[in-house]
């Protein structure tokens, strides 16, 4: 086992520490810093930018997958936007499984096409790495990764591409480098021109594609014992919606992409679950003209032949009857040919899983209680500081109503002495990447944690693993 070997050699490294670890790290990290936030759904990549305004344009989101379309052709991530128009029955292969980079065969192909193209083109202008030797790479990983996977990652980055400098860090911790004081309405702590320092206490809730994690970050470092994970993310929600719709209406089990779009368009987190349930009960939905305040909506499915995209509109209970009458009812041919999903309680029972995983029998606590579980293993003196600084990132947090529900429920179960402030990052998807961009600017901090190519070549991947774990 590589892992136990690493452990055993830790002790040896300790004994021979003065001899092995360089006193003043002979680090010369390259100036250019490239940041990859390698998510399971999209990866966010780009060179570190000078200011927050620039960083938005410097960061590019690329789907991190291989897609097999209905006609059998295989398309790699960066080309998806241009090369795929028919998303029906598209199949996905993702190198990042459950949030962890597992399959390097596929990931290398995607990285090669994104970052290491021979020729510079308009598409890859911002994200092309011409010479890895002169670039420092900041790569994020999900918390609690297996040591074997971490080691694979280090070896691939340093031996396949040979980056000049390299830092592998927990994704959530990077958010602490962002400027969050304005978000929480605090006075600016850092003076303009002063060194960038991470926020003191920040509790990061990262709700992504594969899972939702809670990470308390103290001065830019995660408190490992308190990291908790709920195995519900965007993928599970999409699959659940797919299953429910397939059971009740059309068979959509192969339409992952379309159902993901449906989820993003219609789903919301209910702030009064039972009331919303009553509003969507079939006995209560009246046969009347479509109204805007109804929970029930129609989603018109996309039609690739007519090049029409899917969209949401208010529910029309009379549509079915009109369609039966056919052309007599005066509907246009377009309306007659469209396929409609009627979505009622599916809209909010699906994201409800984040707060009540017990609804599908999962034996895990919902997000607010998970936050309290995470805090329960920390000294009580820290509770107030973390509860007052809860930052939510990740794409799943964009579901409407998520923030309100999280804040309400957290307020209910938190101690009455504590202030509870829950905020979502301005751009929850790219917030982690932007934090990395800030970290790249404080060269001093970066050189403390990153390793250089020479060091890797001298001490090897086992040492790199321990260094990133904070042991070496």
């Amino acid at each position, binding site marked *: 086992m590589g892992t136990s070997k690493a452990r055993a050699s830790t002790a040896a490294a300790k004994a021979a520490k003065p001899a092995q670890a360089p006193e003043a790290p002979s680090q010369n990290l390259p100036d250019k810093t490239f940041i990859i936030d390698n998510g399971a759904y999209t990866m966010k990549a780009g060179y570190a930018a000078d200011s927050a305004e620039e960083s938005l344009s410097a960061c590019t989101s690329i789907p991190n997958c291989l897609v097999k379309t209905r006609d059998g052709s295989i398309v790699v991530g960066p080309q998806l936007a241009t090369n795929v128009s028919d998303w029906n029955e598209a199949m*996905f292969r993702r190198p990042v499984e459950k949030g962890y980079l597992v399959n390097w065969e596929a990931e290398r192909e995607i990285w090669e096409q994104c970052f290491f193209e021979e020729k510079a083109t308009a598409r890859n202008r911002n994200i092309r790495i011409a010479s890895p030797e002169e670039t420092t790479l900041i790569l994020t990983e999900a918390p609690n990764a297996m040591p074997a996977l971490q080691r694979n990652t280090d070896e691939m980055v340093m031996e396949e591409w040979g980056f000049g400098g390299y830092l592998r860090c927990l994704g959530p911790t990077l958010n602490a480098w962002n400027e969050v004081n304005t978000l929480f309405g605090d006075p600016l702590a850092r003076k303009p021109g002063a060194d960038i320092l991470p926020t003191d206490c920040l509790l990061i809730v990262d709700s992504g594609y594969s899972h939702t994690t809670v990470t308390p970050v103290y001065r830019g470092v995660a408190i490992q014992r308190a990291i908790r994970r709920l195995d519900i993310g965007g993928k599970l929600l999409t699959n659940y919606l797919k299953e429910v719709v397939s059971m009740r209406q059309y068979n959509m089990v192969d339409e992952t992409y379309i159902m993901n779009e449906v989820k993003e368009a219609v789903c919301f987190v209910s702030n009064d679950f039972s009331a919303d349930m009553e509003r969507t009960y079939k006995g209560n939905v009246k046969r009347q003209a479509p109204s805007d305040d109804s929970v029930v909506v129609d989603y018109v499915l996309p039609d690739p032949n007519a090049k029409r995209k899917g969209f949401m509109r208010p529910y029309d209970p009379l549509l079915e009857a009109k369609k039966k009458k056919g052309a007599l009812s005066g509907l246009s041919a377009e309306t007659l040919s469209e396929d409609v999903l009627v979505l009622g309680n599916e809209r909010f029972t699906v994201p409800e899983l984040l707060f009540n995983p017990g609804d599908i029998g999962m034996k895990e606590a919902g997000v607010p209680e998970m936050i309290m579980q995470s805090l329960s293993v920390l000294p009580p003196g820290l509770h107030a500081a973390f509860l007052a600084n809860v930052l939510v990132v990740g794409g799943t947090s964009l579901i409407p109503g998520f923030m309100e529900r999280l804040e309400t429920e957290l307020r209910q179960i938190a101690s009455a002495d504590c202030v509870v402030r829950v905020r979502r990052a301005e751009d929850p998807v790219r917030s982690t990447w932007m934090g990395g961009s800030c970290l790249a600017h404080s060269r001093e901090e970066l050189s403390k944690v990153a390793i250089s190519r020479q060091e890797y070549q001298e001490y090897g991947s086992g040492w790199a693993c321990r260094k990133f774990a904070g042991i070496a």
Partner: protein
Amino acid sequence: MFRVEVLPGGSSQAQPGYTYVTDRGLGPSQAATAPTLSRKRGIRDAGKGGDISSQRANAIARHIAELNKENHRDVQIAVPVKQAKEAGVRKTREKTTSNVRRILQSQKTFNNYLDDEEAAIAQGGGGLSAFQGGGNANVTAKGAGKAAATAAARRSSTPATGPAKKATGRKRILAEANSASQSAAESSQTEAADGETQTQAEESRPRLLKTEHDNDPLLRSYAPNMPSDRIMQRLLAEPPLSYNASRAAPPLASQPPRGFCCICGYWGKIRCKNCHVRTCGLDCYRLHEDSRCGAFY
């Protein structure tokens, strides 16, 4: 009489695991002793009634595994073969090392890695994550102090506790942990005894104004103090938990699970007498009975 049931595995894959469960009135020898139970119902209710758990738990585990799949069908999507010209260009850049070849050719999935890690932990290795159980249970602040002490015992390079005064050092850590958990008054003492690191930190921090009302019992803050820097250093130096140990624990308030209608999603008020699924009313029940009664998920 006993029956054998497959246990729901906590592991990622279907593995054999069995338990003996008591059997109520199934066999012909017992039919006479329990004549009121018809044999048909007994067969139908096998694994239901009092102990439905393992069967249901299996179904739930299968359902969740299904929900975690990327595609509904199993498909193999091969990495597209590169053009020969292009591949040639790439080859020239650098020779691939044996590590890279091994990683690229590995067809291991996440579950394989997870099983490897679990096996390593079971053998006592555990890789980088040294103490696994620590985060799983609710560890109080006192436990935190102990864990920190054991960490200190293991890692001699941690600051302050030199080998010469190890015994005293450990005592002090425990005192610190206690102070952090409870009394604010005591903490001032221990922090005073805490040594140079603490005073240094104090100096760099902005100090609060002192007034005569500080000791007024009505105005005093009873909020627990921030833990000292040394405790924070210990906390931050801890190794990560394993994948399974970091999963969120089941909720404390054990409310009965909510049931939903399997047809329309409304509250599931009535339960089908043949299978355990719920429906909201007679309309949905009839639909369920006609079409999918007996189907498991």
